[in-house]
């Protein structure tokens, strides 16, 4: 009641937005952080998981493999998103994966360095190399964001990578023998822990922090 009463300005915003004209509005409101990431990718997944239930006997993996393209799965628990990503760009050791060109994720040898289209994006990062992670190195890690009022901000952490041991993990019906590496990063008022499950020179699975609002992202390299 009182919300409706008080938010005259908000109502005004809504009232003013409901217009028509030759410019055709100007962008969908649902390009908001949450909605966008992978509507279609989610429905893709739904198809993938729903099909077997209809006794077509095509496993989700077979269906993805049939595309003949590398697939990276990303889950963003804080955004309530789950999507299969395809490659949009490769430059040297950096691969950029996309969810239908709405959200992009750039990883250098499997280590997250940028996100785009998530709203609170990781704009760039000084991140460890795969060798540093598997070698148990200590280093400094810097995350760059757009902070309050879109001004560039950074967070610097002191990090240590440590091999936690050998494990066998399963990704979409296929098992992988991996080495688990845990990266522990601290600064005076915060801590970030990233986990990597590494198979040979491939980060098969990882859980990497992106930003305050996005939180941790879970990646699984489904198809190489």
């Amino acid at each position, binding site marked *: 009641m*009182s919300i409706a*009463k008080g938010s*005259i*300005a*908000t109502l*005004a*915003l*809504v*009232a*003013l*937005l*409901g*217009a*028509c*004209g*030759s*410019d055709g*509005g*100007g*962008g*969908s*409101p*649902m*390009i*908001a*952080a949450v*909605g*966008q990431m992978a509507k279609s990718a989610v429905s893709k997944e739904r198809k993938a998981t729903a099909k077997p239930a209809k006794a077509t006997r095509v496993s989700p993996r077979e269906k993805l493999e049939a595309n003949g393209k590398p697939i990276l799965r990303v889950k963003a628990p804080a955004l309530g998103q789950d999507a299969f990503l395809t490659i*949009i760009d490769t*430059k040297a050791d*950096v691969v*950029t994966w*996309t969810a239908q*060109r*709405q*959200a*992009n994720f*750039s990883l*250098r040898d499997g280590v997250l360095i*940028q996100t*785009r*289209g*998530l*709203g*609170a*994006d990781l*704009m*760039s*990062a*000084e*991140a460890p190399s795969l060798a540093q992670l598997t070698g148990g190195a200590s280093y400094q890690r*810097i995350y*760059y964001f*757009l902070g*309050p*009022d*879109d*001004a*560039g901000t950074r967070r610097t952490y002191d990090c240590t990578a440590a091999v936690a041991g050998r494990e066998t993990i399963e990704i979409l019906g296929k098992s992988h023998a991996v080495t688990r590496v845990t990266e522990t990063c601290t600064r005076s008022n915060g801590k970030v822990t990233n986990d990597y499950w590494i198979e040979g020179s491939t980060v098969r699975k990882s859980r990497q922090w992106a930003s305050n*609002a996005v939180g941790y992202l879970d990646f699984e390299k489904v198809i190489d």
Partner: protein
Amino acid sequence: MYLLSRRLLAFLAAGTALSMAPAHAESTGTLNLNGATGLIDMPSGEAQKDATFSFSTSVAGPITRTTFSFQFSERLSASFRFQTWRDWDAVIPGDPKETDRSIDLRYQILKEGTWRPALTIGLQDFTGQGLFASEYVAATKNFGDRLKVTAGLGWGRLGSYGGIGTLFGDRPPVSPTGTPNTDQWFQGEAAPFAGVEYRISDTWTFKGEYSSDAYVTEDEVRGLIERDSPFNFGFEYQRNPNLRFGIYSLYGSEIGLSFHVILDPKSRLTGGIPGAAPTPVKARPARAADPDAYDGGWVTQPDAGPILRQNLAKRLAADGIAVENIAYTATTVQVRIRNNRIDAGSQAVGRTARALSHVMPASVEVFEIVPVVNGMGASKITIRRSDLERLEYTADNATLLRQRVTVTDAGPVPAHAIGDEALYPKFNWNLGPALRLSEPAKGDIGLRLSANYTFAPGFVLSGSIYKQLASNTSLGDPSTSPLPHVRTDGSRYTEFGDPALERLTFAWYARPAPDLYSRLTIGYLERMHAGVSGEILWKPVDSQLALGAELNYTRQRDTDGGLGFGEYDYDVVTGYVSAYYDFGNGFLGQLDVGRYLAGDVGATISVDRVFANGWKVGAFATVTDVSAADFGKSGFDKGIRFSIPFNWALGTENRRGFGMTLRPGRGDGGARVDVDGRLYDSIREYHTDGLDPDWGRVWR
């Protein structure tokens, strides 16, 4: 229908974001019934978080207060308030309702330390007729993270109960109204007040206070309330950073309610920056591996230009960016763009640069991007393609790229630029609901049809018609202003002009010389005045200072919203010289000196705090040779203004917004013709002071 439901969804999404945003960790002051930082009816020594913008409504017995407050800087805040007293005629015959408007200023002298309390000095209702006028000093100290104790000393209204004597001399009556009541400040009886605030849980707070306000007007003079006790207490509830509710027992006899909307302009309600991910930069093959790709021979192909222009336009259309024209050599390309949607200039530049990396042959190394506003090139941003390629995935790429980018004057359109015959003339129209608020909860809702026809870049015919659908405004008492009624007949224009032709103008924008911008507007400039308006602005792209001059000749229009001039027979030449200065950190100052609409001569000073995301909150004051008595109750023209971009609240990617100007009273002095397309605001976004605060968005 589809549009409507999409808007609704966006609104719901914004609402969800509102309730899901994380709670503030740091302790800041809470708001009182006056919408200022404080206890229940009393102020405190604390401040709000820097840049906090709040909208408060409170009911205390027969008094309703609606307040906008803004924390201009860490220490300075201002409030603008509408007060309404019901049953005003309970004892003394007259209007059943009294309304008043007031402006407050507060300054935090000391921030809280380990032993030291926060200390604030404040002026309440310091320019009005004095119904709320008071001055105070208040100190607040936190004990642990739950308890706050406040004590203070008040003068004026806040010194009216339990006084301890006159410290600095007797308090004279308010005279004249509307000007700062400097001779009253800290004069007369002083009285102490005190209170506590105790945080019971994360959401509930208890407040209790001893008030030094005797409510003389409301109790003794007007008989509106019974003030039985100096003690007030109550509870407040706040579950998220944006909404706070309070319920109180006031003065032993009344119930009080408060409701606050608390906004942080620096953080979008929807979290982050809206919009889809960009297409990555396209890398060129290594020169050694494919030297042929770098051959510049393609420039001789006759159809290269139109094809490149078309490919670029196609890519940029996805971002709402239109390509005016491109000009190129084998090594350099200049593209002139119109950014119709993205709210940050830097992001539009970044999207354009990436699109160029896909479209232009490898031999082109230099990208010159010229954003065009109203046909005027606003600036030229020059980016080396190899920097773009090399820095895309580098840590801190925004800072590194900025060091390598130059921003210069746009310069003239290159002679060999390739445009598109189909671009001009260009016709746009829009029909939509519109809201005209004269103050919170007072105004009308209607339909506005607007259209513009651009003959060529910089030559625009535009107009708008407004039709009321519902209104709660009234004609009111006729203006008694002794000056020409250039503004005080506003309600007549509202009531008689329905539908009304608001504007119908032909405007010509141009770049007469480097660093110079010009505008000439002819026609029905605004709903009350028509004529000719010319403006020239000097603003180098990297200058904090800009200078401008404006000259207008206008006649006052009829109130029926038509084309005539029979009603007033009033014409006037007005003009100003203006200085604009960017003080940094988003603080913009402006000084205008000249002749105003009523023929009065004077100056306007204004200060705005602008945020990179488009929020703008400011205050202005105009003093002219019109006497305070001739101006009316509010003495001289002053007020606050704000604008909120839609994308901040709703997560839509567009450049429109909602704005409002609030004045304690409207007189005919210090009024300016309200013409569209003033130059400084149009082009500043693409100058360094507009691009740099959110330059990081170049990679967004």
